[in-house]
């Protein structure tokens, strides 16, 4: 497969390698984790419980400011852009995750207990990149009988 030849320059016979440039930058990540749980014995045969967890994670690279490359290029590559403005965005991460659980256990008899609980989870992706927008959610409902034989 040929690549598009729009704007092709004549075949270069004097390719050049100009070395490299570098700069220092800071990479920061901040993660918050919060949880709360509660158990409540409402009646002798009824127990309620709940839990909430919250996670917020952010990470980013500072702006990348490269030194000027003109002295290395000696007038060559004047069409090229060496500002690297979008480079820091490659590593941006920004997530929020919320998980909420509520449930109960109700003792129908000394041997039989009815249980039910539900979980709702939400994830927000504020910096979609490699895998696309990963924002999503789910809920789970679960119920059954516990038999002590």
């Amino acid at each position, binding site marked *: 497969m040929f690549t598009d030849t729009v704007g092709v320059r004549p075949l270069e016979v004097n390719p050049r390698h100009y070395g*490299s440039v570098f700069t220092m930058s800071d990479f920061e990540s901040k993660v918050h984790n919060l949880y709360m749980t509660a158990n409540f014995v409402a009646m002798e045969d009824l127990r309620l419980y709940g839990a909430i967890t919250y996670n917020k994670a952010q990470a980013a690279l500072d702006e990348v400011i490269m030194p000027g490359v003109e002295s290395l290029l000696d007038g060559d590559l004047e069409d090229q852009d060496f500002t690297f403005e979008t480079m820091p965005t490659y590593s941006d991460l920004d997530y929020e995750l919320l998980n909420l659980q509520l449930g109960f256990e109700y003792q129908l008899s000394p041997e039989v207990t009815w249980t039910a609980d539900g979980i709702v989870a939400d994830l927000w992706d504020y910096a979609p990149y490699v895998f696309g927008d990963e924002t999503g959610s789910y809920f789970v409902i679960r119920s059954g009988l516990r038999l002590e034989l």
Partner: protein
Amino acid sequence: MKTINIILYVGLVLLLAFSVVLAEDNETQESTILWIGSHYVDFSDYNKKIGEYLCGEDEWIPELELTYFSRSDNSIFRLDGHFHDDKDIFADARATKGDHFRLSGKYRSFIRQLGQDLLTNVEAREFFESTGNPGGKMLTHELLDPGADYDYKRQEILTEVEILLSRKNNIRFTAAHRSVLKNGERQAIANNHCFSCHLTSESADVVQRSHQIEAGLDAELAGSDIGYRFGYRVFESDAPDPVAYYDPAKHPVHGGAGAEFSSRQVFDDTSVAYSTLPRTEKTSHKVRFKRDLGQGEFASSLGYSIAKNTITDLSSEAYVGSANYAVGLSNRTRLVTRGTVTMLKADDPWIDLPTYRGGAADLNETDFDFTRYSGLDRWDLRFSAEVISRLSPRVVLYVLGGYDRVDRDDYPIWDEGTQTDKFTGQVKLRYRKGLRYSSLVKYRFEKTSDPFVSARGLFELPGYDILEPAVPVSPWIFYWQREDLRYQSITTLPTDKHVFEWRSTYRPSERYGLTIGLKGKYDKNNDLDSLDVQHFSLQPNLNINYTPDVKWTLAAGYTYSFDKSKLPITVALFDG
């Protein structure tokens, strides 16, 4: 291993454990708790991230949990099981018969969902600002399986048995087995260069097997504990390797071919298997020895292992020896010393490259073949001594000093290795006032000389003038020639490292509890010329328990993690 075989295997272990434990026991106490229910799962939007380890269907699926416990005069049997669905199953059975027999078996399966790298970050094209037109050199990508649903099912089986063979000398046989099986699909990405610089993505099967066994004997002889362990582990993939077509070697814009291009590609105009996995085997032997020595206790071990990739016929060997000695210096002070010596030796593969400019009309060829000497080859010595002293009934002081030395044989240059020395000092103080208050404070400092660095260099010097003598008639610079242009050692490992930790727990009554803590770390490398590589992290945390009355139990906690790194970023500059 097929599912039916796994079920039969687990069932056999359970039956064996149950029959052995209950044999000859007359009176047995039993309890069984069975949970029978159902669950319903519904996902919205993208489910691969939030449901990475949660599989489920938007329909009611039967679910089962079982706990069985049995006890008699001389034996205990316990079975815990959870059937979430046919992909997520857990079972754990343990049987103990007196002090002469113990058997356990565990099975766990779950699904892991994997996202698809959309490769959208792999897209660039030359642009001429002066004319406003795009150029012909470009980097593109192609998903051959858009919207693919990657995931794999992981199954793990673990069994352990211990049998008392003889009460005389307390001779015991132990054996363990672990298998990990993965089945599913993953993403494989092939990378084309030169004529059409692009990445392609396709689905590849996952059929991976890992089996590990360990067996040994332990005994007490003449006041000493001795033991021997044999280990064997194998990993293999039964999935066919993905195959990609590598484009002909041509100029990316003009399509011109010839030696200048073909000799720069390891593969061109051919289909080759890629994203392959090794088949590895590891065999190990270990003997241990422990006995009282003087006023203290001495323990030591010697080990040998060999690991081999049977596909490439490359192997590595390791010899490990360790010795520990712990002795009471007084009725309040104890000394614990630890030492380990490891020798690692790995094969050095020969890298066979196409002859640069091979077949060129000017016959000016250059060979870049080389031996990649392993950076694993080393002597690794670790020694530490810790003094533990009870200063008062409430205060215990720990003071530790350590020295680690890594002597590499052939890195970065064959027979001209480097040596890393690390000194460690640590002070830890524990304070406890009954059950009401306890606290811990720790500070650790590590000083490292010559930490491991990438000797190939991070930066590049301008190459055209420097390399011209190497290939005088060609203005082109080959990838492997850039090795001679590299400078500036680089590493993320520090020369100075400080670690601080504090944790306090306060329980004014049985109804309240508060734990607060802080971890901090700062490290820096002072050996990288003007590069100011450093890392800083801080992690405060708070946990509270509150039980206002017999009806309520509350708990809450918060953790914050802050990490900051200072790092160099570099870009190589080319034209052509």
